[in-house]
């Protein structure tokens, strides 16, 4: 089967800085892969490359069948990205934000409502402006936006950061459900214990390159 993500010698520049200096990565559809590595290793840039937000300047890069070196826009509407930023309009309410972003992606109204319910945002919080929310609540809203868009590739950058225990469990549940439904998931995380528990395998990213692949990681942890 064609891999969901295929990178071979991928190089990506942030200005004059080679954030990725030769990444090899193959991820099968439905697979959950943990990217681990020190700060500045290039994990975030790797995720942004897969989302089509950052250009791959050399090497091969194919995501969900789209050759990113030719066109990195077509893939965008099919991926969901959770980054350090929330991607929300501060002055709009939680419900407004989820409705706007999910409608932009062509999702049905029911998807937005279901996503908010799943993240525990369907009650009083729905009508609260985002700038009044706590960091954890914002993260839940971002996750609701992502869930409502029904992406085929989930790109999660430190998804557990800033969440309480129940929020973390919620993230793990979402990832498991997404993978079960056939979506592919890439997680960059420093919370290795937790991330390894949900990932099928982990890949080390160091100095802008993939260092090693360890299959069946989950079995060891379990």
């Amino acid at each position: 089967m064609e891999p969901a993500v295929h990178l071979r010698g991928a190089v990506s520049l942030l200005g004059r800085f080679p954030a990725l200096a030769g990444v090899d990565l193959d991820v099968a559809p439905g697979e959950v892969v943990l990217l681990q590595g020190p700060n500045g290793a290039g994990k975030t840039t790797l995720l942004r490359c897969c989302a089509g937000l950052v250009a791959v300047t050399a090497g091969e890069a194919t995501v969900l069948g789209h050759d990113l070196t030719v066109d990195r826009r077509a893939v965008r509407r099919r991926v969901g990205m959770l980054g350090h930023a929330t991607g929300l309009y501060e002055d709009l309410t939680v419900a407004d934000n989820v409705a706007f972003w999910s409608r932009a992606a062509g999702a049905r109204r029911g998807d937005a409502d279901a996503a908010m319910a799943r993240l525990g945002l369907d009650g009083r919080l729905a009508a609260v402006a985002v700038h009044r929310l706590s960091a954890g609540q914002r993260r839940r809203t971002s996750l609701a936006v992502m869930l409502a868009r029904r992406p085929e590739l989930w790109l999660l950058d430190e998804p557990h950061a800033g969440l309480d225990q129940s929020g973390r469990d919620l993230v793990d549940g979402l990832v498991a459900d997404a993978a079960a439904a056939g979506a592919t998931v890439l997680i960059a995380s420093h919370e290795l214990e937790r991330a390894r528990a949900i990932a099928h395998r982990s890949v080390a990213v160091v100095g802008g390159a993939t260092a090693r692949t360890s299959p069946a990681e989950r079995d060891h942890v379990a």
Partner: protein
Amino acid sequence: MNDSTASTGTRVLGSITLVGFAALLLFGLVLSPADAAQGELVRMMYVHVPTAFVAFGAFTVTVAASVAYLLRRTEWWDLVAHGSAEIGAVLLAATLVSGMLWGRPTWGVYWTWDARLTTTALLFVLVLGYLAVRRLPLDRDKRAGLAAVVGLLLLPTTIVCHYATTWWRTLHQGPTIARADPQIDGLLLFTLVLGLAVFALLYVWMMVHRFRVLYLEHRVEDLGLDTAIAERRREASGALATPRPATGPVT
């Protein structure tokens, strides 16, 4: 290898330009006659009109190169657009200053809000904005793309402004060259054309040098880039050599 941006071609071009300026001085200040109406002041024309023409030509090159850059995305067009705008700005400044010096004795004021003056002043401000975008601390490719769009956006404003101010008010004399006007003396006309040619040569000469300097600046940046990629790769292979990555043991 030569260690300057000059080559045989540019040296010849520069020499011709220099001789041209000597000839322009001779014709402009000595050989050409004083004007019946304006007297000696008419000699300002030999600087004022050519700089204006060449400056407008330079901005036309910038707009065209911006469009070409957006279509082709090659460094060459980016450098042409950049260099031409800089030289055009210098020439336009010369136009404005010489115009003021000319305006004071003929009109009695340095500046007036006549149509052509207004359009020219506005164009000068627009170009200053364009050059400000050129100096933004961004990635080279991003800056090139933004500058190309800004360069392209100059066009409609300049055109609309031209019509707006022409309808609005006009004090500046109409085009003297296009008109087959008997009032312009033969030698006067020749001097004016000579001025145009000399300033056009100056533009080309400066353009070649500016282009080469900009090109070399980019190459210096690229040198740093190769080193950076090499370093990044070493960082990666260094980590590979150690049995356990710094991120912690694999359980």
